[in-house]
């Protein structure tokens, strides 16, 4: 014990006090101060930022977690929540002088209530485990990030994660109805509830997607969705992304809202093929993975229409998955695309931007131009239905300047998204990585207004500081506001209510 204690950097005021509280309340394994072990937490899924935390705690329950936060508040020690650490924007990047609070031991599904279409889960519960637990009752948890086998519900809530099916079913924010939440003071409050429309401000709506900057979620009540009567997954091959894009537009214009429409271009197909042998159509310049779900009669009709629209827009091959094995293989190609790119390029940046769907052809063309003029290869994998692009910018770090060139192309793609009325992130979050881009999308006044929310929740700026916003303001000060009582009030002419 004594040896471990000496590992805590002496320069970090307050950290020792927090460590002492943690040691008193948590089992020994749940308090990590050993340098070597601290370093295993130095990054999340975005490995090029690395910071060793001063202290890691792994609480077993909400009470322990709240006590640690309370100690942090008392000593003004910054803290960062971490779920599974799969985030791709550096959201769970530790603070060098702070505490990393890891939820991986809080993994209980505390209630499964299909009759209410609700489940209550701890923050460390793995996304897919909610669906696994609900399936025997005929239900599932709809938000399905590609990382669903490993990412946590707490991380999903913080990132407002989405997946292939959010075109039809929405994001985490549409599926979380209540939460127990530990504020930056260490108090525990209930946000929302099991029933809809809790009276008062929708604080839960503000917390979802706040990337751990407002506080920590210790329990979540999620909505369960009925498993559909029928699901059809179709793999469609096109010669070009233009054709695939036109088919996507035609499907949406026909009034069909598929459960998912995903697109991959030639380079992404090549990568997936090399990695998982998913047997996508030979020579395709683009594929669409389209999934239809719902009542059988309707799915049948929509399928016929989708097939026709794809053919009209140049599809040269259409394959309907006839059994779960086929279906899984089609999805495997898509879902492993990120990792697969490692097979064709030693290094790559996964970009995440959004454009209005109708801008797809123009933006894809502009990306292709960027790629050819810079010599940086870009593979495109994306949620075509809702315009969420995931360009994979490939490079070889061993080549002098290649990393910088890739960074540049990657940033230029975000500018393209903003230019077309889109967003700098559709699902990976702002985190550490994109804080600098926020002013390109929002004005100072917009950002200042968002900061008011943070000041209400976390006036001392200790909950995941330095993330999302490039320059947090001091919470006591609001620019341009008069101070003190108004003269009319002082003269007794008016009252401030």
């Amino acid at each position, binding site marked *: 014990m004594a040896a471990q204690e000496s590992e805590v950097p002496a320069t970090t005021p307050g950290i020792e006090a927090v460590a002492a509280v943690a040691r008193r309340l948590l089992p020994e394994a749940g308090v990590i101060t050993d340098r070597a072990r601290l370093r295993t937490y130095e990054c999340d899924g975005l490995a090029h930022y690395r910071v060793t935390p001063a202290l890691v705690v792994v609480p077993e329950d909400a009470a322990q977690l709240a006590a640690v936060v309370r100690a942090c508040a008392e000593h003004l020690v910054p803290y960062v929540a971490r779920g599974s650490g799969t985030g791709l924007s550096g959201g769970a990047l530790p603070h060098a002088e702070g505490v990393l609070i890891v939820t991986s031991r809080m993994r209980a599904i505390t209630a499964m209530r299909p009759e209410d279409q609700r489940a209550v889960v701890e923050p460390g519960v793995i996304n897919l485990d909610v669906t696994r637990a609900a399936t025997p009752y005929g239900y599932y948890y709809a938000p399905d990030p590609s990382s669903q086998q490993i990412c946590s519900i707490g991380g999903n809530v913080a*990132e407002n994660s989405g997946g292939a099916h959010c075109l039809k079913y929405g994001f985490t924010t549409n599926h979380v109805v209540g939460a127990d939440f530990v504020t930056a003071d260490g108090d525990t409050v209930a*946000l929302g509830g*099991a029933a809809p429309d809790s009276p008062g401000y929708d*604080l839960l709506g503000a917390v979802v997607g706040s990337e751990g900057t407002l506080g920590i979620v210790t329990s979540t009540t999620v909505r369960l969705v009925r498993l559909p009567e029928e699901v059809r997954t179709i793999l469609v091959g096109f010669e070009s992304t233009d054709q695939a894009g036109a088919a996507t537009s035609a499907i949406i214009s026909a009034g069909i809202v598929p459960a998912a429409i995903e697109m991959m271009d030639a380079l992404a197909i090549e990568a997936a093929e090399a990695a998982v042998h998913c047997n996508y159509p030979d020579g395709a310049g683009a594929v669409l993975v389209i999934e239809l779900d719902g009542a059988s009669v309707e799915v049948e009709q929509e399928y016929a229409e989708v097939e026709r629209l794809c053919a009209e827009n140049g599809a040269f091959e259409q394959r309907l998955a006839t059994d779960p094995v086929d279906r899984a293989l089609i999805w495997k190609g898509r879902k492993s695309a990120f990792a697969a790119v490692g097979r064709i390029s030693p290094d790559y940046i996964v970009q995440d931007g959004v454009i209005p769907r109708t801008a797809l052809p123009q933006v894809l063309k502009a990306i292709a131009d960027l790629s050819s003029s810079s010599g940086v290869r870009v593979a495109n994998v994306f949620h075509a239905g809702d315009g969420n692009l995931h360009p994979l910018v490939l490079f070889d770090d061993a080549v002098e300047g290649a990393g910088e060139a890739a960074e540049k192309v990657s940033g230029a793609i975000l500018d393209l998204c903003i230019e077309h009325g889109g967003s700098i992130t*559709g699902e990976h979050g702002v985190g550490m990585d994109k804080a600098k881009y926020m002013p390109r999308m929002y004005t100072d006044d917009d950002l200042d207004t968002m900061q008011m929310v943070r000041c209400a*929740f976390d006036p001392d700026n200790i909950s995941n500081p330095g993330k999302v916003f490039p320059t947090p303001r001091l919470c006591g000060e609001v620019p341009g506001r008069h101070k003190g009582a108004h003269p*009319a009030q002082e003269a007794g002419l008016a009252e401030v209510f």
Partner: protein
Amino acid sequence: MSTGTLDRTAREAIASACADVHDPQPADHVDGVVPGLVARPADTAQVAEVLRAATAHGLSVVPRGRGTKMTWGTPPAGADVLLDVSALDQVLDHAAGDLIVATQAGARLRDVQDVVGRGGQRLVLDETVPGTSIGGLLATNTSGPRRVATGTARDLLIGITLVRADGVVAKAGGRVVKNVAGYDLGKLLIGSAGTLGVITDATFRLHPVPAAHRWVHAPCDDPAQAQRLAQAVVHGQAVPSAVEVGWAHGHGTVSVLLEGREDGVAGRTAMVRALLGETSTDADDAPGGGSTYPWELGATGDDRATALKLTFVLSGLADVLAAAGETGVALRGSAGAGVAYAAVPAGTPVEAVAATLARLREVCTRHGGSTVVVDAPAGVKAGVDVWGPIPALDLMRRVKDQFDPDHRLAPGRFVGGI
């Protein structure tokens, strides 16, 4: 009760911020509170100027969309300026290919539906109060039967422009369905009753108009049966757009809306009729003549019923219906979402209203929900706990203090005196 006295300098300041100002008429009274002045700005910039002028002169401001839900919530503690956004009535952009619409806050929901309807699309929000404006709908968070399929305004709103109490204009979200950059301020503004900021425009995601629709109605005369029927439908495969229940004098109806393609709707109608049993019927029309609330919308003053909103988890339906029966209130709402509305008749003594409210609140709370008084005559509002217990109230107050530190926006309208 405050009456409209505004000193000359304050009046001039508002008039110079906004060309269209007038003295309040009876129709401008806010739940019995007489405003000092009515300002009807022409655009977001003027809304901002009015709010800046109000800040400079320490004036309270109550926003108004198109008017009747002005008695919802608690009466404002002051209304120096009634900020009427009805001139901001334009539907700004219908991007059909992207399934989105951007509209000004004073536009009527019906006008938005007309515009997007021409492109075969709709904003899936029911018009629960005729003539409702987009801003008023957002600020009161109304929802109707179709919430079972696509949720409420909070699920469809993707971008918002708001003017803060200090007159600063800010936006959040944007024009794409997928956007996780920054905090979701739109969610905070929804249901905030004008206390956090004035909404001047909003962008929503749209859905295609279904080719066909059909209602299936089944009568039932005991609460347990109503719950069984509702559960059979929500756990079935009919993909309902609405699962409604109406209940009065110990019996009622469960109604299911099916929307989609012709053949699909026909097939699912048969499926639901089989689930609901031999006494079920199907029709084109919504139950109760299509009105969502079991109270009279046009009633004013003490002729108003006490309007309640009840929420509960789905398995609580039978108990909620039983409690409604015991207390003698008529109830209508979404059995498939766990939201219902009840009306205590006008003229009921305050003590009796309080007893009914307590009983319903107890049962809803036990089933994970709440009961709030949406609207009621002044005497009732003063004599009952309008909102009931509010968890996280302290945090809500801190949000209010940040956005409106002087508490000048719709003061006293909301939970905990916010």
